[in-house]
């Protein structure tokens, strides 16, 4: 009789267990938790082309094309994104235009793909593939005249091809391949009165070709060719309707070419006659009818054309400046804008092209100094309330930010430099100071009262919509997570990011706001070449106990040029304020940067810079750091990977250096080398453990109470090579030709610890190395699927340390120093699993003590981040795990790795063009902070094994308090009661 209720009890218990088990697997968040600990920011990148909506279409919008391959529609009033498309990197966008007032046309992949997007919502209307030889500079020209054909034609020229495409449905109306060899069409323009299209191209180095085409049929009406003496460099601009300005091969003079007549007539003008102190490179820009601009590094000259007779300098701007294209205001008036730096301000000048000497608008705009120079201006006009013309401009700054300037003010700005993050590091926030000054409290008293009144209103449901919003904002402001001080759990940090423009920005992890930004002066260069590039960002000084009062600082390392011998550049910044503390130009080149674990007395981290002569230079250059370094020098080794020659080399360091008298310079000696045969293998990826990774235990207890010792070496390097034929895209090689070899190498001795071949596998390879395991992702050509393989490496030399007696007596080798020169006895376990997605980036969660189980963070092709438990990638998984193995938590073997929709940490968001995932340990062991960057930014907190060491946010402290109060009250009450009773009893 007792059996049935017992059974139900058991079922209930197992049910609970199953629920508990599942809940550990699925670490998803609830809908109302979205946005509490995570934030998502959308960017578009540096704008390279902008097209405004015409006045008729009414809406205040602008469509932009950016260097991050994004096409986007922005709200002109607020700078918000209406819609946006991130196009794949393999399909670079070249040109942008509007057609019919309702389509956005984009030309990409060197003029081979033309797409039309719906202007209001960004949906794609049509796409046309054009058969052209891909050209570096394709042209897109929308015929404005509706009389030509009933459907508006779009002309595309690329190389020696020309297409006319209907902008209604994308059908090709006509196509023309010019017969001239090596022809590249440079300019296409339309005759305003007839339906003739002029196409001007350059063939070879000196031949200019002009074609008159019928816009309706593409028939060549006239064909003129002319050789120009001295040759052409290929750079041309359109001076006016009938005049082409071309630069000669020596870049010293201009040809003014009239092409409207029966034959080509030209005139040659020396640039030095126009602009005297011309140094370095320069650029030509069409401004408008009869006016061109000549830009050098620091100056801009406006030149007016006097037919083919010559040019005259109308105006010259000696400050860094930028000129916009012309904007048609009325039938006969064209306007253009010039932005010029004047002191700390910029001057916004608008002129009519008919009368260049007079100005319509001259406004001074205050601008943030950390934005650098103006790089591009896009002028737009609007009708003011008094029916006159007003002007506003989109300005692209040197730090890639985008500003809208109107009425002498910056209306809005977008920090689009954040779309091109190069490197990320973190910094702790300052410690909270004890004691708040009285003035602070008094100042805040009124605010405080007001806030409480608002909150009271809110709780009594009396607040109106505005007040509700105010309460929300107040809550957000006062909320714990946004404070500028260090918190107990280590959730609040500064994410210090380095962008492609050489700007360093600090983001608060609470809400992603920018705390400070600094466009590093040492990384700013000339506009045309010799551009310094910022490469990496490192922690330079992380103060602890003794020098706690000092602020931490970060080091930005870069190069002053593109070539490998270009000298390096250092810049050290304060992490709290962003001030540049020190910057220096190194007197040697920079090939490899090795941050060491050593520190000097002021807790500055030691960095070793290897130059192109294989000499190592120590930084910071102080006697103190030299002492610390020399002490450890005999135990320091480094390696270099040469992907070009397929060689990995290991080095040791030696005292002397070729440079005499420089005691911070060390020579290197090659200790080992691995040469991959270049006819069968090519290095695809190398991966090492993170320097700051913490491992909790070196032993792993398996189900049958046996111990396995992890092979934990910081010198472990994972290298994957693919066969040269399989280095291309998937599908370019047959399964028989493709193979992938995975290596585990000890970087001190060059010992190959493990080497395994995957036949029929090919890249792209992504890998992550942590503790004693490596997980790598590749494509299996035989199975037509992506695969993820795992290798775990165990130390066999310690395997006999299982005897408890030995451990007690001390006869174990667990505390013996390990040297890489002893031959390691390792055992390797591996397995591979199918995985559905292709991968853009891969990382692993890092926690403070390394106790919490690990999750792999996989950036999928859909620009989302998937958290996959490492237990799924256990090589010891078997189809039928024994009872012991089940207890250990081994999941039965499956063909492929499961993808749980709830384990996407980005939940509903997409981190467009995802490039990197960074995991930063919080102070709380269970939690790790994850920052993902691409064109977008995403930040969240993850707890791979749930938050076992802290109470959740939903925990009812009130209930706990009430319980305690009730308990205390009950204790007191019963005590009094019992006392009274005892007294009463005694009195009896």
């Amino acid at each position: 009789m007792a059996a049935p209720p017992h059974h139900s009890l058991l079922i209930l218990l197992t049910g609970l267990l199953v629920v508990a088990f599942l809940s550990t697997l699925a670490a998803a968040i609830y809908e109302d938790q979205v946005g509490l600990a995570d934030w998502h920011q959308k960017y578009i990148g540096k704008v390279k082309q902008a097209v405004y909506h015409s006045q008729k279409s009414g809406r205040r919008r602008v469509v932009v094309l950016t260097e991050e391959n994004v096409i986007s529609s922005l709200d002109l009033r607020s700078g918000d994104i209406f819609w946006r498309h991130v196009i794949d990197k393999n399909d670079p966008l070249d040109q942008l235009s509007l057609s019919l007032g309702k389509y956005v046309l984009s030309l990409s992949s060197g003029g081979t793909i033309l797409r039309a997007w719906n202007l209001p919502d960004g949906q794609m209307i049509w796409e046309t593939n054009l058969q052209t030889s891909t050209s570096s500079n394709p042209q897109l020209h929308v015929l404005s005249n509706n009389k030509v054909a009933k459907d508006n034609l779009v002309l595309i020229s690329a190389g020696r091809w020309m297409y006319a495409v209907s902008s209604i449905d994308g059908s090709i109306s006509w196509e023309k391949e010019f017969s001239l060899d090596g022809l590249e069409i440079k300019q296409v323009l339309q005759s305003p009165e007839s339906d003739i299209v002029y196409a001007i191209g350059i063939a070879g180095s000196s031949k200019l070709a002009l074609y008159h085409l019928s816009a309706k049929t593409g028939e060549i009406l006239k064909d003129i060719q002319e050789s120009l003496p001295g040759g052409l460099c290929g750079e041309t601009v359109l001076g006016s309707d009938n005049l082409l300005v071309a630069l000669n091969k020596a870049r010293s003079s201009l040809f003014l070419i009239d092409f409207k007549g029966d034959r080509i007539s030209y005139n040659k003008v020396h640039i030095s006659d126009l602009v005297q102190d011309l140094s370095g490179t320069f650029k030509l820009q069409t401004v408008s009818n009869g006016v061109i601009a000549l830009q050098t590094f620091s100056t801009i000259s406006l030149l007016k054309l006097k037919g083919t007779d010559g040019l005259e300098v109308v105006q010259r701007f000696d400050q860094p400046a930028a000129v916009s294209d012309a904007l048609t205001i009325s039938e006969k008036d064209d306007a253009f804008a010039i932005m010029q730096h004047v002191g700390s301000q910029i001057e916004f000048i608008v002129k009519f092209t008919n009368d260049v000497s007079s100005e319509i608008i001259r406004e001074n705009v205050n601008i943030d100094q950390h934005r650098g120079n103006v790089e591009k201006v896009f002028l737009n006009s609007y009708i003011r309330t008094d029916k006159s013309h007003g002007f506003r401009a989109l300005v692209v700054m040197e730090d890639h930010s985008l500003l809208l300037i109107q009425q002498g003010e910056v209306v809005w700005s977008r920090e689009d430099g954040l779309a091109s993050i190069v490197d990320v590091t973190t910094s702790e926030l300052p410690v909270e100071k004890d004691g708040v000054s009285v003035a602070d409290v008094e100042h805040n008293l009124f605010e405080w009262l007001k806030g409480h009144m608002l909150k009271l209103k809110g709780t009594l449901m009396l607040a109106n919509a505005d007040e509700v919003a105010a309460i929300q904002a107040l809550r957000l402001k006062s909320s714990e997570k946004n404070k500028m001080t260090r918190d107990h759990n280590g959730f609040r940090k500064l994410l210090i990011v380095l962008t492609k423009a050489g700007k360093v920005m600090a983001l608060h992890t609470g809400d992603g706001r920018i705390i400070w930004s600094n466009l590093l002066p040492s990384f700013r260069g000339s506009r045309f070449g010799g551009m310094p590039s910022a490469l990496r960002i490192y922690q330079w000084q992380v103060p602890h106990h003794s020098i706690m009062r000092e602020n931490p600082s970060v080091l930005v390392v870069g190069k002053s040029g593109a070539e490998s011998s270009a000298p390096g550049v250092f810049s050290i910044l304060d992490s709290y304020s962003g001030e540049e503390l020190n910057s220096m130009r190194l007197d040697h080149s920079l090939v490899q940067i090795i941050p060491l674990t050593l520190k000097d007395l002021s807790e500055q981290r030691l960095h070793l810079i290897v130059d192109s002569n294989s000499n190592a230079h120590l930084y910071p250059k102080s006697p103190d750091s030299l002492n610390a370094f020399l002490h450890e020098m005999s135990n320091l080794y480094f390696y270099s990977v040469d992907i070009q020659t397929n060689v990995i080399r290991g080095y040791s360091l030696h005292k002397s250096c070729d440079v005499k008298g420089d005691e911070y310079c060390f020579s290197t000696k090659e200790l080992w080398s691995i040469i991959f045969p270049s006819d069968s293998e090519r290095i695809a990826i190398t991966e090492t453990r993170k320097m700051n990774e913490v491992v909790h235990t070196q032993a792993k207890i398996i189900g049958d109470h046996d111990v396995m010792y992890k092979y934990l070496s910081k010198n472990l390097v994972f290298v994957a090579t693919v066969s040269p034929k399989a280095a291309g895209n998937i599908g370019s090689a047959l399964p028989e030709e493709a193979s992938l070899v995975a290596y585990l190498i000890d970087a001190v001795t060059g010992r190959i610890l493990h080497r395994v071949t995957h036949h029929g596998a090919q890249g792209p390879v992504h890998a992550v190395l942590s503790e004693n395991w490596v997980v790598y992702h590749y494509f299996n050509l035989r199975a037509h699927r992506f695969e993820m393989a795992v290798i775990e490496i165990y130390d066999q030399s310690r395997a006999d340390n299982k005897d408890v007696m030995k451990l007690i007596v001390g006869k174990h080798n667990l505390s013996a120093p390990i040297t890489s020169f002893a031959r390691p006895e390792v055992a390797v376990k591996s397995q591979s699993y199918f995985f559905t997605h292709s991968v853009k980036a891969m990382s692993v969660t890092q926690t403070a003590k390394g106790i919490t189980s690990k999750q792999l963070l996989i950036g999928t092709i859909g620009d989302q981040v998937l958290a996959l438990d490492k237990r799924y990638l256990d090589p010891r998984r078997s189809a039928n795990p024994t009872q012991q193995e089940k207890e250990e938590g081994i999941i039965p073997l499956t063909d492929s790795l499961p993808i749980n929709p709830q384990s996407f940490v980005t939940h509903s968001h997409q981190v467009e063009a995802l490039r990197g995932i960074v995991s930063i340990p919080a102070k709380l062991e269970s939690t790790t902070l994850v920052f993902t960057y691409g064109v977008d930014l995403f930040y969240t907190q993850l707890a791979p094994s749930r938050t076992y060491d802290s109470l959740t946010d939903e925990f009812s402290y009130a209930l706990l308090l009430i319980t305690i109060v009730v308990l205390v009250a009950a204790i007191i009450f019963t005590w009094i009661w019992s006392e009274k009773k005892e007294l009463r009893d005694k009195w009896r």
Partner: protein
Amino acid sequence: MAPLRRALLALAGLLLLSLAASAFQSDELLLNDDEEFEGVGARPSSPLPPAAPAVSSRRRSADASSTGAAESNAMQFTLEHDLGAGKGFVPAGTFSARLKTSAHGTQTLTKLRFTRNELAEDDKDAFKKLLQEDGFYTIRLPSNVLDTTRKDNVVSSIKARCIPRDSLDEHIVIHMDGVNILAVNYGSVGGCQYPRPIKLPSKWTFNSYTILKTAELAPRTPSFADQLIEADNGLGEVMKPPEKSFWAKYWMYIIPLGLIVMNAVTAAANIPEEAAGQGQPGAQRAPAAARRR
């Protein structure tokens, strides 16, 4: 009939195999019989460079002689070392091996033998100096054993103090890929303790152990579907837990229950007792209190 024929065939096959095996008998003295025969056992189905699973030597020899297409050429390459005395790399020993060309045109090395050159007096001095200053002893091999015109060398080093035991004991692992030497790992035979004490060898001769290694094949993910179905079917019968007795199953519930019951019973028994006990002193005290009044 069929089983008989199959048995006969098998017998014939076996005979052939044993005959073939007896046709070739290596009388070579091998320093280490580790993996020199790599690659000869590559199956015809595999078109890739042989990365052979361990096959018995008999089978390998059988294959080698039966394919017949395999050619073998003796060839040599030198090991050079650098004693750090400024002389650079000098020849220190010779590897001799046979080059096998399999039917698919892939070439592999087999039967590797290594002979060390005698150490000259000044070499010994240089080595002693290395030991004293805890320097590196470096060796190198050509990266391609056929094409010696290529000047690429794979290098490997070790702290000189790790080598000496009674004699100079060295352990050389050569990682091969066809005729290319990917890497050479040079090390001591035993471990190398840290910190490294100076120890001079009693015999100035090298005692060498060499191993050739080629890449292993990755364990392929098998298709689990069939196995899993099988396992599922089997699970019902095999994994059924043996019937346990009622007590064995539910003891963890019964014992606490019993305890609670016992507790309750004793508590219930105590209540009347206490009531009786408490009643008496109260009754005694009452007259005293009354008396005080």
